[in-house]
């Protein structure tokens, strides 16, 4: 049987696609952290975070990549201000989060027309935020990064944003000033 060129082309495309997909899912493995964090932070946030946050146990167990393992407690020392910022998938919206002690504020906007504010609490490495219009955000802080899921402005995104200099996002960080 003679191999048919067009069918070979389709098969090659499927092979390349499968290979890229496999590489991509390997690259996205820290998402296991996100899934675990989302699951644990959908519980009603407690008013006072427990001294030894149980949330850290679950994500750590599910992560094989040591570099992506969440810190045992909050990655921040007392009173320290941290900010995380980046683009949401799709590129239109930006997300900025500011964290101080057990408080966190997040801002989602397109830099033009629409914006959304969320507030919430920090429990160990887990962030859990809500907004006035039903917005929700759940994320995990990993060294230098924050990964999670945000639902706002009628969309839902999974995201990873990087730590940035808090001074560079003054408007947002002012919201968590002591």
């Amino acid at each position, binding site marked *: 049987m003679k191999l048919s060129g067009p069918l070979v*082309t389709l098969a090659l*495309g499927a092979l390349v*696609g499968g290979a890229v997909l496999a590489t*991509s899912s390997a690259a*996205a493995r820290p998402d296991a952290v996100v899934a675990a964090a989302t699951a644990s932070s959908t519980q009603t946030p407690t008013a006072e975070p427990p001294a030894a946050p149980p949330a850290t146990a679950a994500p750590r167990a599910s992560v094989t990549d040591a570099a992506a393992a969440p810190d045992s407690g909050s990655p921040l020392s007392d009173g320290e201000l941290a900010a995380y910022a980046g683009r949401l*998938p799709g590129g239109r919206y930006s997300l900025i989060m500011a964290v101080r002690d057990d408080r966190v504020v997040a801002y989602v906007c397109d830099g033009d027309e629409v914006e959304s504010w969320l507030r919430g609490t920090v429990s160990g490495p887990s962030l859990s935020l809500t907004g006035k219009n039903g917005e929700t955000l759940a994320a995990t802080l990993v060294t230098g990064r924050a990964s999670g899921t945000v639902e706002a402005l*009628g969309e839902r995104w*999974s995201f990873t944003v990087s730590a940035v200099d808090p001074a560079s996002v003054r408007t947002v960080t002012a919201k968590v000033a002591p």
Partner: protein
Amino acid sequence: MSGPTQGAAQRLDLVLVRLALVGAAVAVALGVFGRVHPPTGIAAHLPGFSGPLESKVWLASLAAALAVVQLLSALALYGRLPRVTAPAWTGTLHRWSGRAAFLATVPVAVHCLYALGFQAFDTRVLVHSLLGCVFFGAFTTKMLALTRRGLPGWSLPLLGGLVFTTLVGLWLTSALWFFTTNGIRW
């Protein structure tokens, strides 16, 4: 239609409809995957580029450039280029540039579907998502049609034209938008 009887012609038309349905199924499957699978925001990208978006827009631009080669070589093969007689290697050029263009689009599509998903938050993004699904459906139908003999003469130009048009639309709604928004960068 000189050769086939009316019954045979109807059977061939049915073949074409079946191939189109296969392509439509591919397009719908990609769209459903892109919509249902939660976007990871993370995916592999090519070394040598500053980020996944940069590698995507350049792969897409390579595919778009090859698509122009596709259009010109197809026009030459069909004798539609004035004062040009298609050299003997035109068919080979058409096949291999098409194969290369298709393979260049595959990693881009995987990144789109896996990391970003089928989105509709503005017109550009909706059009791009739809065209992306249609492109791979149309390409599948075109490849399958190439393996069948005796299809109506307009089948391949129509399918090829659809593949070309969707690819150019995809490039306009992604790479051109990226270059005009962020400047030309690697």
